């Protein structure tokens, strides 16, 4: 989103459209698209690392449903913002195109080529990492370090400016907290409770996990909630008959990622977008955000649920 927002605003301004009409569908799509892969979304990273699921597992199990959801939401937003988009069609495209061509150039071609090649290599490693038994972290680390070594970037400034340490430390501290609840037995109590409610029924457990994840992502922090759910879902996957397929992991992934679309603070991308839009002079209120996003969120979650029930 950090890359797309400035471009979107620059496009919208000459078109004399409120950029919000583009930005909100974009964030929605970003959250949706991220759901499909291991590295697309922080909750998926957590789930993949905890449950030892591979990049391909994610793509194979979630790719289809994410595509369907994306299509549905594209149609939805097209209708929702139709009055806004309509006003644009009679404007001159040539001038905007010219402007963009001049403003957005590749600044360092060699760096671009190196980065793209290494990115491709890392993606290739992601595709085969489970065959090699290589943890995804190794693939990413190897990619980042070889890129740094080749491009002769200053590692000290990258570590100090580009790496989001407060977020990483937030995660580290969170893991310690959650391990504390696990070690002292809180998690097992909750998991037993959920299992009790589900009464060994996978369908019920699946619905519970999915909607709990959605609810929590809308209201609390997606990442915190997902991390707390990991041991619970692991426990459930081991005890409920029929859950061995890992369907509960996918329910958690879909719920956490899709639910993030529901409110302004549901996902990090939302917060960033609203922040940047406000900086550019376009305020998006909490209510406005919820109005345009809550309904398609519910639609996608329903689709996801139907998919999980049908496919597993």
């Amino acid at each position: 989103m950090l890359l797309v927002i400035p471009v979107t605003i620059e496009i919208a301004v000459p078109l004399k459209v409120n950029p919000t009409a583009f930005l909100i569908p974009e964030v929605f799509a970003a959250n949706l698209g991220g759901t499909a892969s291991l590295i697309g979304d922080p909750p998926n990273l957590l789930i993949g690392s905890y449950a030892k699921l591979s990049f391909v597992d994610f793509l194979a199990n979630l790719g289809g449903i994410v595509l369907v959801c994306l299509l549905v939401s594209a149609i939805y937003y097209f209708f929702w913002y139709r009055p806004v988009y309509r006003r644009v069609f009679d404007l001159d495209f040539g001038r905007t195109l010219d402007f963009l061509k001049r403003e957005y150039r590749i600044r360092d071609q060699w760096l671009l080529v190196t980065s793209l090649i290494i990115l491709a290599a890392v993606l290739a490693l992601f595709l085969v990492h489970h065959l090699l038994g290589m943890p995804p972290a190794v693939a990413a680390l190897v990619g980042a370090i070889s890129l740094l070594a080749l491009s002769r970037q200053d590692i000290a400034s990258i570590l100090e400016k580009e790496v989001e340490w407060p977020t990483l430390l937030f995660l580290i501290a969170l893991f310690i907290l959650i391990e504390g609840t696990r070690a002292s037995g809180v998690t097992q109590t909750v998991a037993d409770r959920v299992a009790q409610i589900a009464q060994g029924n996978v369908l019920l457990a699946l619905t519970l996990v999915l909607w709990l994840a959605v609810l929590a992502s809308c209201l609390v922090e997606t990442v915190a909630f997902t991390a707390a759910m990991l041991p619970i879902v692991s426990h459930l996957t081991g005890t409920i008959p029929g859950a061995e397929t890992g369907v509960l992991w996918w329910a958690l992934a879909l719920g956490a990622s899709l639910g993030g679309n529901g409110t302004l603070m549901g996902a990090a991308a939302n917060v960033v977008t609203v922040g940047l839009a406000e900086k550019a002079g376009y305020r998006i209120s909490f209510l406005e955000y919820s109005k345009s996003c809550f309904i398609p969120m519910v639609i996608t979650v329903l689709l996801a649920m139907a998919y999980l029930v049908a496919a597993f």
Partner: protein
Amino acid sequence: MRKVFPLIGVTFLLLVGNVTGFAATSEPGDRLTVAGMIKSPQGKGVKEVEVVVRLDGQPLKAAESEEITTGKHGGFVAEFILPAGVLPDARVEVTAHKPAWRDLPRTPLKVLEAGVDRHGNRRFQASQTFTLYRQLTPAFWLATGILLLVYLIIAAEIMHRTLAALLGAALILFISYTAGTFDKNYFILSFADAIAAIDMNVIFLLMGMMIIVGVLKKTGLFQWLAYKSYAMARGNVFILSCILMLVTAVASAFLDNVTTMLLMIPVTIEIAVTLKINPISLLIPEVFASNVGGTATLIGDPPNILIGSYAKLSFVDFVLNLTLIVAICMAVSLIYYVYWYKKDYLKAEVKDVGRTLEYLRKEYRITDKKLLILSLGMLAFTIFLFIVHGVLHMEPSIAALTGAMVLLTVSRGNIVEMLEREVEWPTLVFFMALFIVVAGAEETGLIQAIAEGVADMSRGSLPLAIMLIVWVSALASAAIDNIPFTATMLPIVAYLNTTIPGAESGVLWWSLALGACFGGNGTMIGASANVVTVGLAEKAGYPISFLYYLKACLVPMLLTVALASAYLLLFY
């Protein structure tokens, strides 16, 4: 070890019993329980060894899991169901396999009858300890090569040291998961072991202390201290430098070296700026002093903590045996550095002492009294926790983090600003990566090879053993890291203590302590205090190159180690 093993066994059986208890008991047949320990020649348990139990040559499948592997302390236990009546006549053998180790040849087991279980099945038991020897596989050469490569890159300054170490770590993991997947002889280090090798205690300790120092910086305390020390020395840099070294050495004896340096560095830089000299000429003697001073006590330096807890030596033992030589070495290095940096010190601006003092008194004031009291209070509390950490079994990092977080909460400090500005991430990441690279060399047998070499060569002669231990540990800790080296040497020294006549006085423990601690002074990466100092100096705009560090520190390091070996030979 003997205490730990049954505990693991019981836990394992409980776990297994829960999951497969029903299946295992319903099937009729003889029950065979095999338990054992797999140890290195030094008597340390070897983890993650694949164990195969064979019955008349045929591998047996365990009742509860497909593979039998040893746990963290080298123990394993497995239960088998055999056709009734096979035992006790059949031949039961054990083989074991681990990458970078020689395969355990088929070893026969003595099977004992242990009665009948409640379903009427006969029970048999066997337990034994096995010794596994190292094998130098390609992984060993790769890991050693990567370690050397990292040093070379750092020494030649081809890249930033953090990048060099990260590159080494990435290379080790990449080879392990590509070539190592197809041929176990190329497998260096597993991801889980790499993560476990990162000593989070060091990382969090540094982070916590950096935050506390970051808050302290805002109060103007360090400037005020600089003014005070300037006033005390009346502008005489030589005296000032001596005072700084002594303060550092004494503080290091009771605090972690890194903590001491983190507190000293801001003051020193302020002093150097007022005197208009290069702070490096004050900083390097200080680090040296902190490594030397830390040697005198049980808690001063990590190798001492290891030795003390392994050999059951007390705080007083350390003070009695080491203080004298540490004091001598301190005096020698003081003189050395005053000469070494004479030119730099002479450049200092000491013209108008009175006026400068007047100016400093006005300029270098405490700017925020309330914050100062708060942060000094928290610092005192943290240091108090450091001192009693042995009683509470509290890791120093917990003390530092608690102090830092309470301070930030109480003073309403900005954590994001602290994390982004005050915490020296390149240094912390350097530590993490270096831990992984060293773990790769350790896992494939480098440190064990050195340790075995020392034991082989010194057999029988006490003076030779003393010399070897002092010098090998000095060179090893200059090059690698003194913590894993000391840990590996502990059982060897304990063994030598019992076999060499005259070693009962524990002199070899002191050899190990002096060698490992003094040796850390040899290179920029020999001790954590060095790395931190270089990192912070770089951040303040005074980069120190690997070679410069080596030039300034190698000679006095060799001098102190030579003094130490002379002392040991004379007095024991």
